[in-house]
């Protein structure tokens, strides 16, 4: 079983590396959104520091939503997905493998990049750490939740918007706690509460999202 998980993971990572550009698209988007704001707003450090948690987290949410469309459509279009559904392997594992790969490709670079982004907004060391941790907890949850939407809209006209429309309400709690944690740390309040909640959301998402995704995939592949 672990074998299969590893195989799917490696497959998707290899594919991502082959295309190279895909690895960067989310990261690039994230960096652009975050960095363009100071450009539009102007260089007042106080304003910047104040809006930093919101900006960074909104950017993270959006770039994660962006990348979702690709999660299953490519496999769907070339017929690889139906082969997966027919494989004598627990589909749960396959979904988990694909989502993990997706997170490694799109989420991790973003997490690693975030301190640099935070610096642009003049965040303190502690706030940067909290930002990094909150993204580390939040982005996998976003990927897991997003997978449901991606699976539901597979092959539908206008998949792109639909994904966003379906996934957005589901991911807003992650956004709120993520931004909340950083804000709390910036303003000197305790950020633990928010981080615990994010952990809880992540665990819940890990348990239920792959199941829902699987059900959605079966519906969509018909």
């Amino acid at each position, binding site marked *: 079983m672990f074998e299969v998980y590893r195989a799917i993971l490696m497959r998707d990572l290899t594919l991502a590396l082959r295309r190279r550009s895909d690895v960067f698209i989310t990261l690039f988007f994230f960096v652009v959104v975050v960095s363009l704001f100071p450009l539009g707003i102007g260089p007042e450090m106080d304003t910047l520091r104040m809006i930093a948690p919101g900006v960074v987290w909104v950017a993270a949410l959006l770039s994660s939503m962006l990348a979702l469309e690709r999660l299953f459509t490519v496999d769907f279009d*070339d017929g690889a997905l*139906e*082969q997966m559904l*027919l*494989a*004598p392997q627990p589909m749960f594992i396959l979904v988990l493998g694909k989502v993990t790969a997706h997170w490694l490709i799109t989420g991790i670079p973003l997490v690693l990049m975030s301190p640099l982004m935070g610096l642009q907004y003049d965040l303190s060391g502690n706030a940067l750490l909290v930002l990094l941790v909150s993204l580390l907890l939040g982005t996998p949850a976003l990927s897991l939740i997003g997978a449901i939407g991606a699976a539901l809209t597979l092959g539908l006209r206008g998949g792109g918007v639909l994904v966003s429309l379906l996934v957005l309400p589901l991911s807003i709690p992650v956004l709120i706690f993520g931004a909340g944690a950083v804000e709390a740390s910036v303003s000197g309040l305790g950020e633990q509460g928010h981080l615990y909640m994010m952990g809880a959301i992540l665990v819940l998402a890990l348990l239920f999202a792959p199941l829902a995704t699987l059900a959605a995939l079966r519906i969509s592949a018909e």
Partner: protein
Amino acid sequence: MLEVVELECMRGDRRLFTGLSFKLEPGELLHLHGRNGSGKTTLMRTVCGLIRPSAGEILWDGEGIWDQGDDFNRDLVYIGHKNGIKDDLNGIENLRICSVLDGVQINESQAWDALEKMGLRGHEDLPARVLSQGQKRRVTLARLLTHDAKLWVLDEPFTALDKAAVEFLQSVIRDHVANGGMVILTTHQEVNLTRGHPKQLQLGWKGEGDV
């Protein structure tokens, strides 16, 4: 043994077929006939469990395929209109990932062998993207050589293949049937599969899609 009982399939608001029943025993080949759009693909996907039929049952070894989960999948290979290979992976990689999913892990030299048998010598390590139409199909079909499933469901497997490859694939199918395998197959080309005592099934008596 595969048993299809009183199957009915709807597409949109169109009833493609209804009350369809047949049995397939080991060592038998079922050749589906039918005009374009008569529902051959739909039937095959239903038999594989990709589409839920609107009525009727599909039994594998006496048990409904929707109730037994992976057991049925382990005995099944489906090759459809779409190749299901990744454009950015080369032949070897494509074949190996398929085999992991099929639960019949093969090592690299086995993969090279299978591709060579399928006539892809010299193209094994090109990304599928640059392969010709027929070469892509060959990569897909190489799975049949590495897999040990009992039931093969092949939807127009001969498309895009040149004559030599068609010949070879036919012999592969004949061998499988001779060894007690089962095959459901459709093709619009003339084929020579007599050694498998093919059953014939004609879909779409309604005369849809005449020319």
